[in-house]
């Protein structure tokens, strides 16, 4: 087999840091995948790490190394309907709070997440990362589709991947042809009782927030 010599893990640290003997995560957990990728990016070089529970059921991870203070929000959308799922964190808010670096990431794009976390470790001061973790039990989809749904969320512009560095906004993953929002919602059983008007309403909302970001 000498068709390709590309080996994806060469771009990531090959050592495994997230090695629990027993973890209680469900099969196909997006949060476990995100935590594993975070551990890989950190490479055990960290001073302090603390877990918190956020207001809407999401878990917050606080990290400290030197001057860098990172707050990571692992959002699995445990509460809220379509309006909360469509509306995402605003970069303007983060800038107003005095965050020097802010980014969104998804475990479906591992190299993107790795780069952003490395950048957050290098910048001094407060940094904030928002990670969308698909949850097979809460969102009611097949555990196979975890990575695919995370990708659909980015491609349908529900969860655009961007970073705000020193007040300047930059999109890291460009989506020239957006996917239909219905494709993203159809895969999840939690949205199975939505009517078509509601889906259209949500689609216009997604477009509006996306235009605001640009």
């Amino acid at each position, binding site marked *: 087999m000498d068709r390709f010599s590309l080996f994806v893990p060469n771009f990531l640290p090959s050592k495994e840091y997230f090695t629990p003997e027993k973890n209680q995560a469900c099969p196909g957990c997006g949060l476990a995948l995100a935590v594993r990728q975070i551990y890989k990016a950190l490479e055990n070089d960290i001073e302090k790490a603390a877990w918190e529970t956020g207001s809407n059921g999401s878990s917050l991870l606080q990290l400290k190394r030197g001057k860098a203070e990172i707050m990571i929000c692992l959002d699995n959308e445990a509460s809220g309907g379509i309006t909360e799922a469509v509306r995402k964190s605003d970069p303007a808010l983060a800038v107003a709070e005095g965050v020097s670096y802010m980014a969104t990431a998804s475990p479906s794009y591992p190299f993107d997440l790795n780069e952003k976390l490395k950048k957050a470790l290098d910048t001094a001061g407060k940094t904030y990362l928002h990670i969308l973790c698909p949850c097979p039990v809460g969102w009611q989809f097949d555990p196979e589709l975890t*990575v695919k749904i995370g990708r659909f969320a980015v491609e349908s512009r529900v969860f655009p991947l961007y970073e705000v560095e020193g007040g300047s906004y930059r999109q890291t993953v460009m989506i020239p042809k957006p996917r239909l929002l219905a494709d993203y919602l159809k895969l999840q059983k939690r949205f199975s009782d939505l009517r078509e008007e509601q889906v259209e309403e949500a689609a216009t909302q997604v477009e509006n927030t996306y235009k605001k970001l640009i």
Partner: protein
Amino acid sequence: MNSRAQFSNEMVRCSLLEKGDGKPFKPGDRREASPEWDKDKCIRCGLCYVYCPDGAIYRADDGYFEAELDKCKGCGICHRECWFGAVTMVMEG
């Protein structure tokens, strides 16, 4: 054997009543299907390794990938994400 243990034998799914009852079990014990690699189709790109949530996939000495069955929970992400369809999920009997 006390009465509580007898009662737990009758219960089919929920038999973990005492602290430490879950010690002999491993994450892979509740797996429904396990991945298998077709070495003719596999190009050893390592996407399955990157996307495994449990860190169960490792690189064997010959360069191909294998799953550590104690850790694998059988979610099927490697099967879904493989570009060449090299990973198939085999139901466990």
